[in-house]
């Protein structure tokens, strides 16, 4: 049992050992049967007790989209806001109340289309938030228009002739904006997903997790080619810090670099020459190399691309306030009287 006191003098209460069930709200879940969102919800609910944070000190904030319904289903504080703006609300909340654990749930449309700019800025600020982006490469809630992660040429309701634009890669954007924790997981691999969410939630600073999520109604099978159970080991590269990059059912293949270009080494007998993963490099170059690896040319990298430490915005702001208070002794009457005054009697 731990006990924490939150801002505004609210007593967070004693912290009992929580279980997954404690994080299930009384709201009926309203996603399409078969939707990948269910898995993400389940792994999140499983993972949350492991954080050992009192329920009342956890907040889920989302935008609008199928994915953004998430907060209704988690028995914590929740805010289902407006399209694309979850990060702004989360940033304000976290800056005001640094002691809260704040999650942001967003979609490829919510987070990268209308909300793309807030993502950039929250990341460069390194606000201590955990951002989970459900990437189904489609607009689910509005029934099937292409999204900024839809493949070039994709035919959708709003692109009957195929799209004419290249997709964004969320990981690439996160790296470029300076996110201190960047990872990818997939709805179908529940164990990996739970672990990744846990690592992200434990990171201090902004953590960004792209989850490959299947929308079985409007974009079914978007990741099936590599994410289904039977092909996963052969077609995805599970990143493990400090380990050489290997994949395959028997981890028989490896990845090495040829100049700046990664190469698959089939049946690599030795680890020599294989890239050793290191997510903690200050320089994001290795991560940038990995992010360019796409199926079917490469196995799809999954796991933690980057994880570095840096001071967070919310703590820096709090420190400035604390230091100012300590140094300047707040006196409002004196403030009102600062500068020229005169007496009339």
């Amino acid at each position, binding site marked *: 049992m731990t006990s924490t006191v939150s801002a505004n003098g609210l007593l967070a209460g004693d912290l009992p050992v929580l279980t997954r069930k404690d994080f299930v709200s009384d709201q009926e879940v309203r996603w399409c049967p078969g939707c990948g969102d269910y898995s993400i919800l389940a792994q999140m609910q499983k993972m949350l007790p492991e954080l050992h944070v009192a329920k*009342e000190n956890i907040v889920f904030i989302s935008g609008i989209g199928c994915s953004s319904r998430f907060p209704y289903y988690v028995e914590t504080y929740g805010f289902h806001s407006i399209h694309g703006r979850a990060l702004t609300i989360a940033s304000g909340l976290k800056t005001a109340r640094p002691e809260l654990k704040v999650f942001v749930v967003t979609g490829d449309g919510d987070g990268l289309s209308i909300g793309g700019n807030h993502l950039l800025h929250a990341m460069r600020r390194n606000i201590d938030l955990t951002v989970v982006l459900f990437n189904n490469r489609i607009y689910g809630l509005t029934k099937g228009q292409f999204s900024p992660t839809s493949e070039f040429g994709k035919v959708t309701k709003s692109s009957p002739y195929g799209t004419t634009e290249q997709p964004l890669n969320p990981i690439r954007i996160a790296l470029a904006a300076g996110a201190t924790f960047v990872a990818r997981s997939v709805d179908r691999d529940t164990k990996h997903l739970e672990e990744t969410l846990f690592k992200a939630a434990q990171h201090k600073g902004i953590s960004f997790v792209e989850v490959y999520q299947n929308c079985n109604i409007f974009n079914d099978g978007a990741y099936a080619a590599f994410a289904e159970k039977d092909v996963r080991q052969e077609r995805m590269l599970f990143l493990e810090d400090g380990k050489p990059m290997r994949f395959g059912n028997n981890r028989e293949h490896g990845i090495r670099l040829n100049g700046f270009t990664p190469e698959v080494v089939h049946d690599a007998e030795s680890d020599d020459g294989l890239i050793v993963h290191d997510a903690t490099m200050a320089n994001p170059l290795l991560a940038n190399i990995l992010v360019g690896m796409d199926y079917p040319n490469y196995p799809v990298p999954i796991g933690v691309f980057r994880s570095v430490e840096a001071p967070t915005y919310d703590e820096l702001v709090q420190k400035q306030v604390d230091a100012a208070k300590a140094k300047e002794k707040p006196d409002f009457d004196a403030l009102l009287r600062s500068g020229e005054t005169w007496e009339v009697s």
Partner: protein
Amino acid sequence: MVSNGLMTTEMHSPPEHVVEELDRVTIRFAGDSGDGMQLTGTQFTRTTAVFGNDIATLPDYPAEIRAPTGSLPGVSGFQLSFSSSDIRTPGDQPDVLVAMNPAALKTNLGDLVPGGLLIVDEDEFNPANLKKAAYTSNPLEDGSLRGFQVVAIHITRQNELALEGLPLNAAGKFKSRNFYALGLILWLYGRPLDTTVKWAEERFGRSPETLDANLRALYAGHAFGETTEVFHTRYEVAPATVRPGTYRHISGNEATALGFVAASILSGLPLFYGSYPITPASDVLHELSKLKSFGVKTFQAEDEIAAIGAAIGAAYGGHLALTGTSGPGLALKSEALNLAVMTELPLVVIDVQRAGPSTGMPTKTEQSDLLQAMFGRNGDSAVAIVAPCTPADCFMMAIEAFRLALKYMVPVVFLSDGYLGNGSEPWRIPSLSDIPKLDWEYAKPVEGWQPYLRNPETGARTWAVPGQKGLEHRIGGLEKSGQNGDISYDPRNHHEMTLARMGKVANMTRDIPPLEVSGPSEGELLVLGWGGTYGAISSAVEAARSQGKSVASAHLRYLNPFPANIESVLRSYKKVLIPELNTGQLSLLIRGMFLVDAVPFNKISGQPFKIREIQGKIDEVLGLRGPYVLDFPQGSALSGG
């Protein structure tokens, strides 16, 4: 035209000057934006305030940061009016114009009263500058200034002489000219130099050369007045009788910042300010960002949407959440503001209005965002609206804004404007202990608590802040079922929730002061205003009354809801006149809500009303004259062409 005073050093005993007593004087300093006119104006204001006059000011900067030196758009101005009695506007027209170069003369002369005193730096009227100001002949020579008392002085050269020997080049010396002009004007109105000297010592203490140069210039200007015969008369404006107390000068934006910090202290809630810079609201951000020691957190966001989003987050987190902007930024915030309406969180939104539409004229004032604040959101969505009426009033109305937001769990828009924000006036410093504390309450985990339970009196839902065990719940922008807050598409529920949200604002009617009337409680004409037009309207109405006309004035500081007695006030007069710096926005609301045939009087020029304009319209409405038509002097902007 008075000849220049270059030969003054040859004179021996100072001439005797006649002293004339005046009740009120309006001066405008105008020069290039590099000429330090804002500083000159501010220093004269301080001295005059300490002297005990009532005073009001209107700074006016060019839109460009540094327009080319000597150009028309580069002109910067500062107008101030001081008096031995109560005044409320910086004056309709200057009695005195100090023009530091031809461009300043060109853009400001149109405003000078006929026969007014015009002081110019003759040295600057050279061909190059005349050309930049688009003069084809030199106005000092072509007779075009005949209608004024022109005093042309070689300010630049005299100032250079005064600074002889200082280790400064000509450009460096040129920078002190404004102190020369200040010294001269201080002399003209019999003001002591000590306030300025003290201020300069503090300000330039670290740079002794600059200090020395500026003080020499100041004394030289003063001495010039004293020793030459250029001015036959000196003027005196006796101190005003004002309420005892400690006074300071305060601009609207400063008062706004301080008022919100006061609200933080009075509520015990930390202040969070999310903002994105925009003229003329940025100063509020600058002020608040200095006040970290009061627990203020400022968040300079990536845009206005992020700024209000962050503030909503802070409001949700139980802080005193504030966001601020000007008109275009309010447009951007509208979608998110609606989220605050829907989630029923306490939030205050500052709009320091400027001339629109679109980018409009960022440095000019207007009152044209009222209907945007009322209606600029999808759906039936009410926010409360308050509007300070003088620079200092921003302080009290800031506190009021949070009083209402916290009590009713409703966003409140605080409608200031560029005229109020940049204008300043003497302010009797209040003591926080005289102001009632602000009430609020976080929800507590009592039996049966639900997120949308309402207070039966105010209609407010409870403020359930993360961190409180047992109150875990979800809110959002979708319609919520009353009481339990689940998403609801039930028709009756939406109907009732819409009315409940709007009802909270209506409920405030009982909680805000009645509309005060100045003048007879019934009669021929009521002049109704709001916001920054207070000074002009009340002065005009008082003047009309002193001429025996049956006119009263009332000024709305609460625009949504209106005070409870407004309808009976409106119906107590045969006619109602509504002057506004817009095309008739309050008029539409008053007419639509009360079916009163109010007469709109609209000026959309980016400039405040002049007292005489309102007097003219009053006379028209009273049938004492024909139609009153606004006349805009050609090229009369304080700055800009």
